[in-house]
């Protein structure tokens, strides 16, 4: 997110956030990506442990969590079984998880065919 304005330098640290006709200005946007809910269509569902174990995808409503396995961010079920990977543009979550933010979610939509697909919604726990 970018701040705007040209009347004076407004991006002083600690200056909070103000909205002007030109847009948002100040030292902070008042938003934190780590605290934002998100929806995601998981990747690699067909190659993940859950599908391997069950030859199926989790049903709608199944609860999920987010974890980092040292290389990628995954959505896992309550037993820690990987359901699918989050796209790499969600890699920012690694720093969030490391700063003790955790995420819970549910399967919002899923289907086994023609390609195993899972969509999930997550919020900060």
């Amino acid at each position, binding site marked *: *997110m*970018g*701040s*705007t*304005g*040209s009347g004076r*330098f407004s*991006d*002083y*640290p*600690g200056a909070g*956030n103000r909205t002007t006709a*030109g*847009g948002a200005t*100040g*030292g*902070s*946007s008042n*938003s*934190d*990506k*780590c605290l934002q809910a998100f929806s995601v269509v998981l990747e690699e569902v067909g190659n993940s442990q859950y599908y391997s174990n069950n030859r199926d995808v989790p049903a709608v409503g199944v609860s999920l969590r987010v974890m*980092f396995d*040292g*290389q*990628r961010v995954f959505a896992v079920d309550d037993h820690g079984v990987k359901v699918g990977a989050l796209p*790499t*543009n969600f*890699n*920012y979550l*690694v*720093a*969030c998880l*490391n*700063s003790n933010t955790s995420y819970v979610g549910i399967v919002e939509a899923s289907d086994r065919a023609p390609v195993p697909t899972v969509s999930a919604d997550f919020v900060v726990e």
Partner: protein
Amino acid sequence: MSVNPPVLIVGELFVDYTLGRNEVGSKMRLGGVAHAARGLWSANVEYAVAAFCPSYLVDEARRYLGSCECKEFVWLGDVVGAPNVIFLKDATELADQGYEELMRESKEVQIHEQLPSLDLYERVVFFPGQFNISSILHLFSSAAIFSFDIAYDFDDFSLFKVIPGKIGAIVISTSSLLFMRLGERIETLIAEVQQHQPEVFLLKENRGGSRLFDLKSGEVEEIPANLGETVNSVGVGDVYSAVMVALSAMLGWKGAAWRGYQAATVYARSTFPDDIKRDIQREFCLPLKDVQAMGGVFVPWHDRQNYSIYLAGPDFSFMEKAELEYAVESLTYHNFKVRRPIVENGELLRPASEYDLQRTYHMDYQLLKECDLVFAIPLGRDPGTLIEMGMAIEMGKPLITYDPRKENNNTMVMIGSQVYSFDLGECLNGVFKAVSKIRMTA
């Protein structure tokens, strides 16, 4: 973080003014070495600034840098004849950012006659500009280690001949004049750099990552780029360099370069300093091994011409196709090889003979088969472009679809494409990601 004594950054201070476009308003920030200052403040590194700037900017600079916990501000000299204001056409470096420095031809830098000694500072990062570095070298200790981030105003290495002490890092970006002149072959560039005996050479390759050359051991560390939404790419490279140099004593050059990369990635995604600081601090809490394991996009400049991009679009002479031309300019700026079938194989007359139609079809199809990925711009829902997109999907070639006029937001187009967007930056990122993946699997 105490880097005892503070790191000193030396350069000019500017006013950066980015023109608003689309729905984003204009943006004014203190620029020049202020970017490095923000980066070091966000990284909790103690630093000081010695800068040249017009007198009207001095008080504001002291206030602003003071708010960023700058330990000392030294006004080295006045800039006269110009306001030191830079207009930026493109904040996200899709193509040439179009830096326009106002009244640069009448600009003069006047070094103050009386200057304090700067011999306290052991680590100094120069951001060369239109000031004469050799005129201030006497202020420094002979034991100081100097590093240089070469961007504009320099197209040769002569400045290093006057440096009395040790050179820590020489940093060059592929956007710089120096790189444009000497960077065609990496061996030539390294040979030139090596003559001045820096400890390391960092080549920053924009969205393709960067390479850290350890000139003593000969090792090369490949550092990827983490491509996401770029809000403002101005100053990102300065943050990378400054943080790397500042942390090098504590972490070694490699570790410091990775932390510099993390800081730069965050800096590109916001212009709110408190957000930047919060996010850099979070990133620095990650173990380096995790950062390295996550990887990212890595496409060295010198490899990019090895990958051909088929341009699928109504590239006809009679078309109004400004968006297509800009996309080609962007891809070319980033050193990609763009194959334009209509330009290369010829534009058919209307009406065309059966012979010409068949011949052109087969030539274009052959070219598409030879290319590594397809960049499609289906302006006006051009049917030929849509067919070529389908061919690319069936061939399993990565398809990046740039739809600036939002005419093709159809299931088959959006999901068939690896990246579908009306934002050129997203599509450019898609090209880098696709080429990076092809490189890794080759």
